[in-house]
């Protein structure tokens, strides 16, 4: 399949001998100069859809991506593959480094940046000097107020593309309902984008939810599942502490290689855990949603949710990491009645309360300009996302421009408008949350119900379908043997020798 020409490039640059579903169609349209909306399930290599064109085109490719860690990850992996002309611009760069990069921007084929950086005049001035041929919006659902991770800075992207001389636009997402897809086109002002929508259900995955009474029961259940047959397993938690605790409990109880991963760990340790998991040096990883970005491990067999996320979209993204090799895999949610508390707390952290709006208004009455974001969050005692919500509305209603607070504004009216939006947002978030909870309690085929908001039909599963259809996680078929690793080496002398590739015994002279 595929035109010989593109396939050659794929082989030459990436070492793959065939495209995965959707990649070639999208790349061909992009090279043809068409704007494309690509909805591809997680794990089929969305990034290849712009990485390959960036190598084949004369002009620069700009990629807007919401997460710095995600960008840095992709750049690292590209560099490891031998691509040198790629860079991630981020606000953590030292002034000196930044200056050097700006002077050589036209040497890069692929430039990653965050949407916030496009608000920076100095940066846009530099970028405008380039011939931008392709403008990619990764995680494009962030553009929609109905997307699960609405990011206010994404709304300004269509303006930015005009400044770069209207390059070809490629909007990519793994999770976008039809409603969100329409919104993406509208917000980008590109009604004629060519849609390439692919199903996200995985025929090789089975689903199950098990109800237990206590949290300790979850741990016991995990022990029995995992010890039944060792295989690469991810366990998702909403709290760092729980991830750590359960990892320790499992390590003590089982003869398996277990680690935890969360955003509170040091950089090197995070990298080490990720590498260990990739290289089959770990059987089980207890993690928060911080893990997984850019993790492309083919043989994950189980994704267990110790805590379930606050929306179906996140859930689909997380289970999408399993079974990328096409072999049987399973998703299991362990559920207790008390699980409702944690998501509620998480939701509350995302949006401000009515009191927070009042506090903001009172503060603004006495000031002429806003402080920088971190300080505003500190002053008003808000989380980052709470402050972002408020800031967006201040700008949107022209109450604030460039941090200066406009005079003679109707603060009462503003307050009412923000409150209104806040209510809508709360309702929306709660609706999404309910959707997730309903799925957990659903009494029908889980597969059908999970994907119903995204697609009309589902493929026929090649494994047992779900617990409604009679599946239990204990039935999951795991054929491969566990891969042993160097971790088994206990003695430091032997480990050092192996590490340094010294086979013969070293005699001390």
């Amino acid at each position, binding site marked *: 399949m595929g035109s010989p020409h593109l396939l050659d490039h794929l082989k030459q640059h990436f070492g793959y001998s065939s495209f995965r579903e959707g990649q070639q169609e999208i790349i061909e349209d992009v090279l043809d100069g068409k704007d494309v909306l690509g909805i591809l399930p997680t794990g089929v290599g969305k990034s290849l859809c712009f990485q390959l064109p960036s190598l084949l085109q004369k002009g620069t490719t700009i990629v807007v991506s919401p997460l710095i860690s995600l960008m840095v990850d992709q750049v*690292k*992996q590209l560099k*490891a*593959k*031998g691509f040198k002309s790629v860079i991630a611009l981020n606000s953590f760069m030292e002034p000196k*480094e930044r200056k050097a990069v700006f002077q050589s921007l036209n040497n890069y084929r692929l430039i990653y940046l965050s949407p916030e950086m496009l608000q920076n005049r100095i940066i846009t001035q530099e970028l405008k000097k380039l011939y931008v041929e392709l403008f990619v919006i990764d995680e494009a659902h962030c553009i929609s107020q109905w997307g699960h991770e609405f990011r206010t800075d994404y709304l300004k992207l269509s303006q930015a593309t005009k400044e770069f001389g209207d390059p070809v636009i490629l909007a990519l997402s793994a999770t976008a309902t039809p409603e969100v897809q329409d919104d993406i086109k509208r917000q980008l002002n590109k009604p004629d984008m060519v849609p390439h929508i692919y199903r996200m259900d995985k025929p090789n995955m089975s689903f199950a939810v098990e109800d237990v009474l206590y949290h300790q029961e979850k741990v016991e259940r995990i022990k029995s599942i995992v010890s039944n047959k060792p295989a690469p397993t991810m366990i998702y938690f909403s709290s760092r502490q729980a991830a*750590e605790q359960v990892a*320790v409990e499992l*390590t003590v109880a089982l003869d398996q290689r277990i*680690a*935890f991963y969360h955003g509170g*760990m*040091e*950089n*090197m*340790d995070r*990298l*080490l*855990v990720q*590498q*260990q998991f990739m*290289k089959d*040096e770990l059987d089980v990883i207890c993690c928060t949603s911080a893990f997984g970005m850019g993790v492309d491990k083919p043989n994950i067999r189980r994704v267990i949710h110790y805590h379930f996320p606050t929306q179906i979209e996140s859930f689909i993204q997380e289970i999408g990491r399993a079974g990328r090799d096409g072999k049987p895999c399973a998703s299991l949610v362990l559920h207790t009645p008390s699980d409702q508390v944690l998501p509620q707390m998480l939701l509350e952290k995302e949006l401000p309360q009515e009191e927070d709006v009042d506090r903001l208004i009172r503060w603004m009455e006495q000031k002429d300009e806003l402080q920088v974001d971190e300080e505003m969050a500190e002053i008003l005692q808000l989380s980052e996302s709470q402050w972002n919500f408020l800031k967006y509305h201040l700008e949107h209603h022209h109450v604030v421009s460039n941090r200066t607070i406009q005079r003679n504004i109707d603060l009462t009216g503003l307050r009412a408008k923000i409150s209104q939006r806040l209510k809508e947002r709360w309702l929306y978030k709660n609706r999404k949350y309910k959707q997730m909870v309903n799925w957990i309690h659903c009494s029908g085929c889980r597969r059908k119900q999970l994907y119903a908001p995204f697609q009309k039909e589902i493929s026929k599963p090649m494994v047992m379908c779900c617990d409604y259809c009679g599946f239990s996680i204990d039935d999951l078929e795991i054929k491969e043997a566990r891969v042993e690793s*160097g*971790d088994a080496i206990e003695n*430091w*002398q032997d*480990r*050092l*020798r*192996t*590490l*340094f*590739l*010294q086979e013969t015994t*070293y005699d*001390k002279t």
Partner: protein
Amino acid sequence: MFEAILLKCILSLKGERSISGIYHLIQGKRSSQTLQDARIYEIDRFFGVYPQLNKAQVNRVMDQMVNKGWIEINEEGLPAIKDAGMNYLASSFINKKHYFNGMVYHRHVTIFEKRLRLLIQTVTCTQMNNLSFLPIEDDANIQKWVKIKYKEHRPKDLVKALFQEVYELLLTVREKEAELFTARLTGGNLTGRTREQLALRYQMLKENVDLNIRHTWFYMFQQVINNPRSFPALFICMEGLQANDLITDSAKQTYEWLRRGYELEEICKKRRLKMSTIQDHVVEAALVMPTFDITPFISVENQETIGRMQAALKTNKLKNLYESLNRKYTYFELRLVLARTNYAQKEKNTHGQPTSS
């Protein structure tokens, strides 16, 4: 080890400094207060040995030590050591012979460590034809440095030489340290273990995992810098790491102006800094540079007067000294003299490097 270091600090500080003060010292906060504490209370070897440390970790272990009856904390929040704590400390090698030398080397050891970690990963992976490994060090400067060194040497020789030198050095440290150190390295087909994994495997505090490994790095660093000819491969990682005594860059600039003969007031104007800041720099220079002359700021007779009073009072608390001398001298002058006197004592006490254990 962590507990022993805390106990040693508590003991040396004689109940005159808070837990925060101890935290800043071990973490390596570059304020002149912290630097001065480290020097005058003679715990400068622990300065900056644990940069990743956070306050909560210190508080947690302090609470545990209170519960164990090793220390007590008074109403003002000042900790003091008790008999049980003394006994524990006496049993630890931290109280006898250790290789931490933070004030002088903490920044160098960090760079040495990062370079060597990445160099080992690079030479062993490329040797296996794995050219697409993910570097375990993110620091762009370190990556650039390793790239240059990699090109300057034959990887094959480097793998062998690094192995032999590391192996030889690890044979001379405690078994536990060698195990932890090796387990944390990444190279060839092996991925390093995280501190959490090691803490669990060896049933020790996470802080002790970090500090044991850090101690090995200090040991290695000093062995290599003192015997470059015995460790030529490791010495590659020493490039540019000459002992540079002045701690902060800002203090260094002030020192340069002083050397050119400028008065403090002039330096204030030139650098647009407050007098107190410039004075901090001078004290810092007095603290860390053995050759720094303080007589331009306070006469020899006055130095002697202050020194005598300090010896009589047996305290390092500036306020007591200030009052006892009838407020005749400024705090700046007192701090300078304290920095000097203690420096002289210090040199006598710790003369000569400890030999291998």
